[in-house]
């Protein structure tokens, strides 16, 4: 069914149509109540016919599920990480998992944002920061010879995983977090919830960025 409020432009045209529709009914109704009723019936019938024809022109929705490509023995690894995306333990683990040369790696960097900015749809800075982390991570993986692609994901890591699974049918998932006590994701039970929610093996990698900086 055509949705008249799908975009601002369509909503604006819908408003103009409503103005014409109700103005005609009101003018006819003020002149004569029966004339108002007649205009209402005629215009409503015209709208229904237009709506029905527009429905027939509407393209069918396309399935969002991606069809996994590649060879049968190919392993597809989905990596989800926040600030730890460039951490050495994570890069080592990915390199280890992809060492047989038959792995495809897809890195998702969630656009972490404050609740207030999230509510205000102000996520430009969060996305830019996530993109920067992703760029550095992909460059580091490239240096290690790992075939990797990536994208900035939803601020909610579980949603980001689910979004990515729809375009990248992963065989296993790697989630990288800060150590216990400093990890907001662990406090929220992201890893545990991901194991319950997704029917693929999930590896948890802990990255201690403070220790990496001092060593």
């Amino acid at each position, binding site marked *: 069914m055509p949705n008249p*409020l*799908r975009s*601002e432009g369509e909503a604006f045209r819908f408003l103009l149509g*409503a103005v014409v529709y109700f103005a005609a009914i009101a003018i006819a109704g003020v002149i004569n109540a029966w004339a108002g009723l007649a205009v209402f019936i005629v215009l409503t019938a015209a709208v229904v016919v237009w709506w029905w024809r527009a429905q027939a022109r509407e393209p069918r*929705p396309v399935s969002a599920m991606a069809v996994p490509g590649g060879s049968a023995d190919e392993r597809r690894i989905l990596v989800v990480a926040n600030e730890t995306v460039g951490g050495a333990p994570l890069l080592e683990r990915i390199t280890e998992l992809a060492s047989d040369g038959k792995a495809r790696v897809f890195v998702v960097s969630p656009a972490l944002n404050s609740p207030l900015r999230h509510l205000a749809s102000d996520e*430009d800075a969060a996305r830019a920061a996530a993109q920067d982390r992703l760029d550095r991570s992909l460059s580091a993986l490239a240096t290690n010879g790992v*075939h990797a692609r990536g994208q900035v*994901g*939803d601020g909610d890591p579980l949603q980001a995983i689910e979004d990515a699974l729809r375009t990248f049918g992963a065989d296993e998932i790697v989630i990288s977090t800060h150590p216990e006590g400093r990890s907001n994701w662990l406090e929220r039970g992201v890893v545990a919830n991901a194991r319950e929610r997704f029917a693929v093996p999930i590896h948890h990698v802990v990255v201690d960025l403070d220790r990496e900086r001092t060593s």
Partner: protein
Amino acid sequence: MATVDHATHPPVAHQSSRVDARTLGMFLFIASEIMLFGSFFTIYFFVRVAAGTAWPTPPYQLPVFVAGMNTIILVTSSFTMHWALQSIKRGNRAGLQAGLVLTFLLGLSFLLTQILEYSRIGFTPHTNAFGSVFFGLTGLHGAHVFVGLTILLAATIRAFRGHYTEESHHGVEIPGIYWHFVDVMWIVVYTTVYIL
């Protein structure tokens, strides 16, 4: 050789059905709003048609002309909203800012005029069923205008802080859809409550 391929746009939204998520969300929104306004219009129907209550109940009069001017103000605000979005789509930031400020001011004028109308109308929601229905319907719409103004204010502040680009202007598009919907509802309310 590693390849770097990362999107510069938001990820594809999660979809649990074959209906596009944005379409489904907007359908649910419209459905909930239709039910909300529909319940108020049902009361209006029963009071005015089924119960045969005089509309407006004598000796009270509805300020049709003032409300008509208010209608023009609100419909004009939809044009300025549309102009604001078209401006940013063309990279015209000044047009975006002017459009949003005008839309906000016109919306505020509408709301203040309605409040003034309430103070001088001579009856209250407690007066009789006609008064209850009148204040219920116009008040419900006024609440939607208030929410719209709040959203518009946030969008306007963001516009003056340099947010939004030709490619990224969802923060203007969504308030625009909401604002036009609020205007459409007013057209329905004005026609049924004030004119017919």
